[in-house]
């Protein structure tokens, strides 16, 4: 076999691999969107219909009947609040760990990072019991607080490296310019780590938006339930309205995908550490 042939085969296998992965990722998305535009019988047609007359009935039903819009609104509030709180707490913490040396700094950093290894379901019952005692079940504040367990470590982990990549000389120059420590943090360092901030916000936001487990247990009420749990609420009774489930899922997923596409370049830059020069 000539090297050219070997090369061609290699490239073919590479392309084939990419296609397989893409299909695995995109087909469920396609099936969800397609299903949301079908009727129930159409959805279950065997063999599947690749062309059909699309209908928005499922969306009308979802929005009108089940308060999907309200759930989306709840999700938006919980997500934005959780991300904002996580950044307000996590970013200064990361700055402290990056710039100050104090006893236990490594241990604190390690503790933050290892929080991510926590299996969510392990702490679910203690959280439920605590929230119940405090009469905080069905209170969005509970979700916002619980999400911090995952958001703050994520923010700290990402932002410590970001702050470390800002040259110390810049902060020293600012010191000589008469800025105090907080001004240096706010006006010199923070503007230089905006890619990292964006990545932290988006990843935390996706986590909070997507959470099903805690939302399902801690805020099950109709008034306060979040978007991921709403589709789940149809799964009772004798018939499951699959087009409606698909339409709801599409509405829940859309913001994440649109947001992801909008800032994916930023994310790539933020994840390549040392992006700040």
């Amino acid at each position, binding site marked *: 076999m000539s090297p050219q042939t070997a090369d061609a085969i290699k490239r073919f296998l590479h392309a084939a691999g990419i296609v397989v992965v893409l299909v695995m990722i995109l087909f469920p998305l396609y099936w969800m969107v397609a299903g949301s535009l079908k009727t129930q019988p159409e959805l279950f047609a065997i063999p599947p219909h690749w062309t059909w007359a699309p209908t928005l009935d499922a969306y009308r039903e979802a929005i009108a009947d089940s308060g999907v819009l309200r759930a989306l609104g709840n999700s938006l509030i919980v997500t934005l609040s959780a991300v904002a709180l996580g950044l307000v707490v996590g970013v200064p913490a990361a700055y402290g760990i990056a710039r100050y040396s104090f006893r236990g700094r490594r241990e604190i950093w390690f503790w933050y990072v290892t929080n991510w290894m926590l299996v969510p379901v392990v702490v679910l019952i203690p959280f439920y019991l605590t929230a119940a005692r405090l009469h905080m079940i069905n209170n969005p504040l509970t979700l916002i607080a619980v999400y911090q367990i995952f958001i703050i470590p994520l923010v700290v982990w990402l932002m410590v490296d970001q702050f470390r990549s800002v040259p110390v000389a810049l902060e020293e*120059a*600012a010191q*000589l*310019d*008469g800025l105090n420590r907080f001004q240096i943090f706010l006006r010199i360092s923070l503007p230089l780590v905006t890619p990292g901030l964006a990545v932290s916000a988006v990843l935390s936001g996706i986590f909070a938006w997507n959470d099903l487990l805690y939302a399902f247990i801690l805020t099950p009420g109709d008034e306060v339930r979040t978007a991921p749990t709403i589709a789940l609420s149809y799964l009772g009774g004798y018939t499951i309205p699959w087009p409606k489930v698909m339409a709801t899922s599409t509405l829940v997923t859309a913001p994440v995908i649109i947001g992801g596409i909008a800032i994916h370049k930023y994310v790539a830059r933020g994840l390549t550490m040392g992006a700040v020069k």
Partner: protein
Amino acid sequence: MAEIRIDQISKAYGAHTVLHDITFDVEDGEFIVFVGPSGCGKTTLLRTIAGLEKSNLGRIVIGGKDVTHWPPARRGVAMVFQSYALYPHMTVAQNITYGLKVNKVDPAEIEARLKAAATMLQITQLLDRKPKELSGGQRQRVAIGRSIVRQPGVFLFDEPLSNLDAELRVQMRAELVALHRRLGSTMVYVTHDQIEAMTMANRIVVLRDGRIEQIGAPLDLYHNPQNRFVAGFIGSPKMNFLSVTIQAVSDAGVMVELPGGPKITVPVAGPDLVPGGKVELGIRPEHLLLGPGAGAADAQISVTATLVERLGGETLLHGTTRHGEALVVRKSGELAAHHDETVPVGVVAGLCYLFDADGRSLDPLRPREFPQ
């Protein structure tokens, strides 16, 4: 008015002492250069004056005020960093004026100072650019501009030219000297480049391992180094050192035997020396004689050339003595010698230095007469 008094400053990182009991004064308006090999403590000393490092012991007095425990901004000093440390997210104009804005200087005054500094440094056309759109030399000017507008009593420079290419470095060197003349401020400048030190300083502080080796005017250090380290550090190419044996000690000086047998009497005082002992003889490359003049010297040694560098205006001959010690001879003009040739090199006793076992320079019996 901003004279600086460094009073018994010591600094240690854990068990590692980087500054040992440093004491000296800088006069108002003086251009003083800290020079030394890397790790000698010169940057730490500068940062201690700036207030970016805390000393463990000692006092720093600037303009008559004890600023030892003051934050950097209150000390009336401005610093130019090796990396320039320009704020990447601000324009040149914002970089220069940011400190003034933070300190709530009147906007009209800020504008006036910005204009003056920009004109002086010829960066008026760059004011709207971001640092990343500037060349190294331009960034350097902006960094200097940022320090000028604060009108500090003291300018601190931390190896500001080390990131520039050779040509630009020479140009900026001249500009900094001109700037110093124009402003008349006290300037403290750190470099590892002894040529920068020699060309810019009113006085040089030579540091090694956190200790002051010698303080003096550039030519004073060149002519009268107090020890072997300073002798070797100041001057380019550096001073030659030969290990020699003491033959006799008399009122006329110390007689030593050069490689290959010739003896010369170096006119220095050696009260503690005894014949048979070893000392080091130092002689600068430019004080060795080559060609027809060599015969007129007090002694001659044979040197085998290993490399002849012809620079046009001068020639550097690198060679080895009969004892295998490396030697460099510098001759103005051109020289016919070539690689592997053995040439006679003349040594003038009055231009030699002797260093004792501790590296101290032995005092000359009379002032050395350097060729004009």
